[in-house]
Structure formats: C-alpha cells, structure tokens
C-alpha cells in the first residue's frame, strides 16, 4: 500500500531542506570542477534521495484494523473474494477448514475488474457482466457443495471491495481466490499483501486451477 512520504509539515520541510542542500552541492561542484562535474553529482544525489524514500517506504509498518465479530460466538463469517475466476473444490475445502466447529456464514464478493482502456472510455459494462458471471458460477458451485452463501459484485479495487464488505459483513476470515496461473503475477500478490497489511484478520490465498477446469469443460 502506498504511503505518502509528505504526510506532515515536518516531512515536507525535510524534503525541501534536502532539495536545497542537494542543489547547493551541485552548484558548488559545478563551480569548482566545471559545468559537467555537476551532472554526475546531480545523478548521485537524485539516486540517494530516491533510495532514501524507497527504504523508508519499505520500512513503514502498517496499522491493521478489523471490525468487530458479528453474530453469535458459535458463528464464523467467511468473506470469499473471488478475483478473476470462480470457486472450486479447493475453495470449498478452505471454507470448511476456516469454519470447523462453527456455524458458517459466507459472503462471496467478485470485484469488477476494469481494464485501463475501458476506464478511459467508461466501457465498464463488460467487466460487470463478467464479474456477475463469476459470482453466479461461484455461488452455484458452493451450493452444489452444500455451502449456502450470498454474493455481490464489488469495487474494481479488491482491497476496497473487501473494505466495503467488512462494513456490513464483519468477517472473521478472508479468503482471496485467484487463478493459479496468477501465482507469480503481481496483481494477485498485491491483493493478498495489501489485505494482510491493511486488515487485522486471518487472510488466506487460495489458488484455483482455472485452466484445468476450462480444459475439462471443453472435453
């Protein structure tokens, strides 16, 4: 999650001070060694400042929050965020494990993933239809496995979709479901890392083998 490096006057002042000092050093280097000496000095200082802020950002530790438990003490609320795929038996197993010994309530949320180009043209209907299809299929599969769940489509940003769902659902566990081919791709990882940095809840990443399922469906 992004952390604004200039959240306070003190941080902005520090940045201005660093800039003034850096330009003073560049000017001094140019005066002493000629105009071209200033260029590598500028490059080194710019790299140093960029590194400084990158390290600070990485070191920033997040405060995680969570809403109160909703329902009786014998219930477990499970939020299943299905991102770019549908649920399968792996998800059923994860839900059963997360609710062992409790009555379970399950909410499935499918974020409406809108491509950048569709944003520019406001052509988001296709993404909504796709998300609704994922949702309908996911709910049907869960029902087929004996799990009663309700569902909704959510914000295109999965983290915001989670936050929205938590406002009314108060989950005890979050399952983030992504296709297995996204195992090493950034977006799926970003959602899980972002959710773990933001929410004080157990969060599991569940991969479904969408490719294998599609192949089976074709046969």
């Amino acid at each position: 999650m992004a952390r604004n490096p200039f959240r306070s006057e003190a941080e902005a002042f520090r940045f201005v001070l660093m800039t003034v000092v850096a330009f003073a050093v560049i000017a001094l280097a140019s005066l002493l060694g000629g105009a071209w000496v200033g260029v590598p000095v500028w490059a080194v200082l710019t790299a140093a400042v960029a590194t400084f802020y990158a390290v600070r950002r990485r070191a920033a530790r997040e405060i995680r929050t969570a809403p109160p438990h909703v329902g009786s003490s014998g219930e477990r609320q499970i939020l299943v965020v299905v991102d770019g795929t549908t649920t399968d038996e792996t998800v059923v197993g994860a839900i059963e494990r997360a609710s062992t010994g409790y009555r379970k309530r399950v909410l499935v949320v499918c974020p409406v993933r809108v491509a950048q180009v569709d944003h520019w043209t406001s052509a988001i209907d296709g993404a909504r239809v796709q998300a609704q299809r994922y949702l309908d299929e996911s709910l049907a599969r869960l029902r087929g496995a004996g799990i009663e769940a309700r569902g909704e489509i959510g914000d295109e940003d999965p983290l915001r979709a989670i936050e929205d769902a938590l406002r009314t659902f108060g989950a005890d566990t979050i399952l983030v479901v992504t296709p297995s081919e996204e195992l090493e791709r950034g977006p799926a990882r970003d959602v899980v890392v972002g959710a773990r940095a933001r929410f004080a809840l157990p969060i599991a990443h569940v991969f479904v083998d969408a490719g294998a399922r599609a192949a089976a469906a074709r046969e």
Partner: protein
Amino acid sequence: MRLRETGLSPQPWTWIGSPRVLIEHADETKGMSLAAAVRQAGYTVAVCPGPAQSERCPLTGDEGCEAAHGADVIVTSLGLGTRQSREVFEALRTRCPRTPLVVEVTREETEEWPDLLQGCEVVISPVTPDALVATVRGVLAPRGQGG
C-alpha cells in the same frame, strides 16, 4: 490492471459503531491473537506493531497518530525496556490523556517504572486473550462501553 494506490480509506478507524481498541504489540502473532479475542468480544480493533528500530513512532513527532487519537482504549504491549518504547509510552500518556491505557509489562518493569505506570491499568506479561478482554471491558464499563 493495477490496484489504485489511493483506493482505501486513509483513516484507520474505518468501522464505526463499536468501541475502538488499539493494540500495540511488536510480535505479530501475539498481537493478532489478542486482536482476535477483542474482536470476538464485540470491539473494533487496530493492531500496530510499534516503530521499527530505525523508525520513529509518529505519535512522538509532529504528525501524531490517528489510530491512537481515535481509540477508546489503548493496549500497549511494547514494554518499557528500551528508550524508544518508553518514548512511545510517554507520548501515549501525554497526547491521549483521556484515553484509558492498558499496559502489559513484566513484574520487573512495574518495579522499575512505578511513576511512569501510575494511573494506567497494568497487566502482567504474558497476558491471556481472555484476561485482556476482561480488562478492556473493565476500563470501558464506567463509560458505558463495556460491551
């Protein structure tokens, strides 16, 4: 498709309607375990790992800490063993003077820093989740927020 960088609510207490308990614990697993028990008891929770070694807690600087300022109870398990942790503790006391402060410390720390701990609800480390929930209920009860 990328995540929007500004997609989330910037303030820490997103969920309103129930008392807010900030838990400061350097150990992620223990902090989450305490948070889970406090959630189950009906409270909104925030978990802060405290400042890393090279960091400064924003509460000790100009910017302050929205999580601390917005909490109904603060539970700090950062200890008093280092100067950094004592700075955070002192900042909690001076900048959030009306917020009940539950402090998890060792017996040795209670003997070493009695003045610092005066007026706080002290629990001896390691506190169990159930004991912490009972303590939080106890400090909120006079305010009608005991849960």
